[in-house]
């Protein structure tokens, strides 16, 4: 009887787990019929299994849209594709030491030989060329790129803030169904203060205006939140972000601005 019980002991767990089949299942069920201890154990194990199968996490949806996650993965892949190669120290140190030695020996004599007379040096760069080393076009291009980079960074940070609110699952007041949104309101206020600087990009960021306006509205809502927010408010904000497809638009616009 004891040996029989021990033989079936493991099978009772597997029976409760729903993975026992065929003859093993029939034998174990027959044993359980006549074994009060196994019946109790099976009942308790089934309660454990039922509790796991009733766990709402089984059906949980990812808190961000697929497009946003794809963007994160693509950026990470991009980043890992260009790893900063870490050269061995001696591969760098030996040529560097040789170069320092060469400079110390050769440069003084070269300088003495090549140094022009003061008048000749002044004449080397005509005044007209000196003032136009950077053309206006080049300057405008640089300014445009800077404005677009700034706008891209702004949108990317705003996206992170919105995701942190939409994805929060941390209770701060369980009884009142409130969720912790951490520093998101504070970060939203900081971003809103930077909005004017992005706008100053003018034509360079004209194509981003629609997204920037929608982002601003969403950030204003987050900025007004306390750090411990009613679940309903978080759900409303999440729905709004989803209905405007804001995260996907942020991602696409950030890509466009980054060129």
């Amino acid at each position, binding site marked *: 009887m004891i040996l029989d019980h021990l033989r079936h002991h*493991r099978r009772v*767990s*597997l029976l*409760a*787990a*729903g*993975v026992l089949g065929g003859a093993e299942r029939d034998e174990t069920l027959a044993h359980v019929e006549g074994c009060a201890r196994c019946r109790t*154990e099976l009942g*308790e*194990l089934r*309660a*454990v*299994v*039922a*509790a*796991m*199968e*009733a*766990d*709402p*996490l*089984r*059906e*949980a*949806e*990812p*808190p*961000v849209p*697929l497009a946003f*996650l*794809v963007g*994160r*993965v*693509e950026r*990470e*892949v991009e980043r*890992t594709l260009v790893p900063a190669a870490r050269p061995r120290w001696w591969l760098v140190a030996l040529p560097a030491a040789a170069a320092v030695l060469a400079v110390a020996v050769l440069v003084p004599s070269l300088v003495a030989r090549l140094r022009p007379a003061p008048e000749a040096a002044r004449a080397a760069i005509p005044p007209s060329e000196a003032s136009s080393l950077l053309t206006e076009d080049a300057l405008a291009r640089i300014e445009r790129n800077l404005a677009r980079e700034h706008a891209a960074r702004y949108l990317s940070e705003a996206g992170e803030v919105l995701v942190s609110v939409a*994805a*929060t*699952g941390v209770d701060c007041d369980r009884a009142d169904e409130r969720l912790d949104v951490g520093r998101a309101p504070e970060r939203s206020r900081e971003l809103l203060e930077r909005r004017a600087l992005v706008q100053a990009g003018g034509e360079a960021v004209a194509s981003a205006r629609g997204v920037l306006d929608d982002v601003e509205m969403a950030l204003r809502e987050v900025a007004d939140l306390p750090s411990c927010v009613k679940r309903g408010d978080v759900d409303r904000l999440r729905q709004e972000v989803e209905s405007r497809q804001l995260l996907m638009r942020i991602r696409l616009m950030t890509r466009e601005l980054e060129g």
Partner: protein
Amino acid sequence: MGGSAGTWSNEAIQMEPSGGGGDRELMARLAAGDREALAPLMERHYRRLYRIALSYLRQPDDALDVVQEAFVKAFQSASRWDGSAEAGPWLARITVNLSIDRWRRNRRRAQTFTPLAENDRVQALADLSPAPDRRVQGREAGERVAAALRTLPERQRAVVVLRHYQDMSLEEIAGALGMSLGTVKSSLHRALGRLRLSLAGGRP
């Protein structure tokens, strides 16, 4: 019960989006360095991987990070993928391993399970049964189960998550975790025994 649920492969077929190509084709493209294959592969698998990571870690942010890391790793390791194997279990294995790594990192911050008082034993098991207010009951039971799951050794917890949160068969679990069938069975047996004792207030 688990028997009625589809297997991994069946679900992968159901999840197939329009025009995305099959798993094998997508993996082959990934192995060739085609980054465009990432999005359709993610579309097929990200929900399931998210649920595996979430069931293991119980933290949405951590689970999302793990899914992201899993797909980056899949891209990096695609050239080493055995073309005859299913991509689903392979991705599950990456996700479980990353979840275990993340769990180890978070361990210091993790809550420790406080066993229930001995006289709560009967009530504790009764509380796990279905009740009229299923939503509240489900959430409370979920929290109790989460605390009990935290007491399990890492691999045992992985077996339980794949079996009872993903409805995977023992063979699929063995494939995904690189374990023998016998080890999966004994892990499941030990894990359920521990969970039963934890939830009933005994010492695991």
